[in-house]
């Protein structure tokens, strides 16, 4: 394992922000910490970097316990959200900074900086100051500064959030390429689940200082452990409908959504079936909803036509919003009242009280 956290804890002035997190990221893996603001993802990353002290537990990098090791000796490099480039130094000097501090031979420094600049296509920019560069170039310099250190682990703290949408997509691809090229372990923090899905080979969904679920992107998308993960991963997000179980037989339950005026939805479950009358929460992804005759009646408030995909923003009679995704549909449903339903195998069921997944 490249990075292993065992029961890691952190509190600020009596307030616990990281509650015993344990995780493993394999050698050469790309782990992404994702979660809403204040979930502790950046704190966790900073603890791995050594910029925050650890109040409990153990952090190991390539088998070495680094919990009490100084940041510079952990063999990690970090790319900050604000890039943290030294504005008075040229691109070359920014990238060479750590080597100069370590008094590396000049020839070696030059070779390493030029190699990093070649990888990141920054060779033409080496004499410029950060202020003369575009946002994307600055970001690359920050990554170059990290590469030059030849770390065992790269840490990225929301590095793309200062870029515009187009550049973000481009940098995302470059990061994936870079990861493949270098083969070094990377840990990436973001609140953007699209970034998480596209970059990670292992996502850690965090909430209130706890890992809600860890796994491969599609595993989290298809099989969320709880309502929070289901709602957080996927865009547009999963529809949630409070419902009551009205019947169950042969691995199938029949649910009546609240405010659904008698409409029912069949759900297939492999485990123990909830009893009749149980309160559950149905989780249905927008792309799993079909427009049908009958089904749950909703009114289309807004229809967004994007060409290959259209999103119908609909409301149930009780005002609850449901998003429906349709592919290659040319039918104008704006303002129409339609019926919707999902395949029983595509509907996820969560416990009405705890939000835990019922399988």
């Amino acid at each position, binding site marked *: 394992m490249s990075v292993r956290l065992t029961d890691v804890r952190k509190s600020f002035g009596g307030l616990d922000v990281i509650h015993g997190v344990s995780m493993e990221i394999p050698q050469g893996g790309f782990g992404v910490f994702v979660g809403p603001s204040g979930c502790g993802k950046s704190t966790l990353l900073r603890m791995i970097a050594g910029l925050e002290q650890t109040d409990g537990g153990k952090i190991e990098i390539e088998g070495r316990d680094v919990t009490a090791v100084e*940041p510079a000796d952990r063999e990690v490099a970090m790319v900050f959200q604000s890039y943290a480039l030294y504005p008075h130094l040229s691109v070359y000097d920014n990238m060479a900074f750590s080597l100069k501090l370590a008094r590396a031979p000049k020839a070696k420094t030059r070779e390493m900086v030029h190699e990093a600049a070649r990888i990141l296509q920054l060779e033409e920019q080496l004499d410029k100051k950060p202020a003369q560069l575009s946002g994307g170039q600055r970001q690359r310099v920050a990554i170059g500064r990290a590469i030059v250190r030849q770390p065992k682990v790269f840490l990225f703290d929301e590095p793309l959030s200062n870029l515009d949408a187009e550049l973000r997509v481009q940098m995302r691809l470059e990061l994936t390429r870079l990861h493949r090229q270098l083969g070094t372990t990377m840990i990436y923090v973001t609140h953007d689940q699209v970034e998480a899905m596209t970059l990670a080979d292992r996502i850690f969904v965090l909430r209130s200082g706890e890992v809600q679920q860890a796994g491969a992107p599609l595993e989290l998308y298809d099989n969320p452990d709880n309502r929070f993960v289901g709602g957080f991963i996927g865009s547009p997000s999963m529809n949630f409908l409070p419902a009551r179980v009205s019947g169950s037989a042969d691995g199938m339950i029949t649910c009546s959504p609240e405010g659904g005026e008698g409409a029912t939805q069949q759900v297939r479950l492999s485990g123990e079936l909830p009893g009749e009358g149980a309160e559950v929460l149905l989780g249905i992804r927008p792309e799993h909803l079909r427009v049908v005759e009958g089904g749950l009646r909703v009114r289309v408030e807004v229809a967004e036509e994007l060409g290959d995909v259209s999103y119908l923003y609909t409301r149930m009679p009780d005002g609850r919003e449901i998003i429906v995704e349709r592919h290659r549909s040319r039918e104008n449903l704006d303002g129409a009242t339609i019926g919707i339903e999902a395949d029983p195998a595509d509907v996820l069921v969560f416990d009405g009280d705890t939000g835990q997944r019922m399988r």
Partner: protein
Amino acid sequence: MTTTRRIENLIMTGLTCLGAAIWFFPIYWAFVTSIRSEDRVVSDEAGLIPDEFNLGSYIDALFNTQMLNWYLNSIVTSVVITVVVIISGMMCAYAISQLRFAGRRLLYVVVLGSFMVPTQALVVTQFILMDTLGAINTWTGIILPQLIVPVVIIVYKQFFDAVPKEMREAVVLDGGGEYSLLFRIYLPLNWGITTALAIVTFIMSWNQFFWPFLVVTTEDMMTIPVGITQVNDAFGVFYARLMSVALLGAAPVAIAYLIFQKRVTEAVMISSGVKG
């Protein structure tokens, strides 16, 4: 431009010119006096217009007084004060701004507090202290009490506080310690304010009269502002010579000011809180 606006502008220009003339007149008068002979200065015919170009008083000031010694004393003490004040102020501000240690806030309150104590209130104690140290009539005696310039610490702290935290963390991850941080990042990032503070400190110590006047009693150890008082002799006041010494004494500061005008204005605005 409307007529009212034009009249307003005209009045404002007139007032500004009048202010400038009032401010400039003493310097002009000093210059006119300094290029006259002593007899001419006190004669009834001496008017506002320069009517003589006599550099005798300048030659006299430079070679018949201890002027060159005073220059040396002023230069040495001002340069030492500037260098020490800037380096110590910067390091102190860095510690208060960036390091976490017990009593940090108290230390800052003490610095702020010392800013509010007028130098005159400390003169007697400082004089006794310098006497005890045997520093009367020495450069050390002139320099030591002038090394306390809390405003330098306060201004530096403001600027160090504004450096993004990530920059510090990046250096820490790159393996840099506090000295690398201060001298490779914080100082170069604040080079502008450093030069501005250095110029203001230099001008302040060059113009300092009160303390050097007290601590120096022998003519050869005097700084220029104190030396000027020695140009009179038992036979009366030599106006031309007095004015030429005054102009020669002010010249280095005036030249420095003209060269670094922009930075000085910036420093004064920052230290007086107009700009932060």
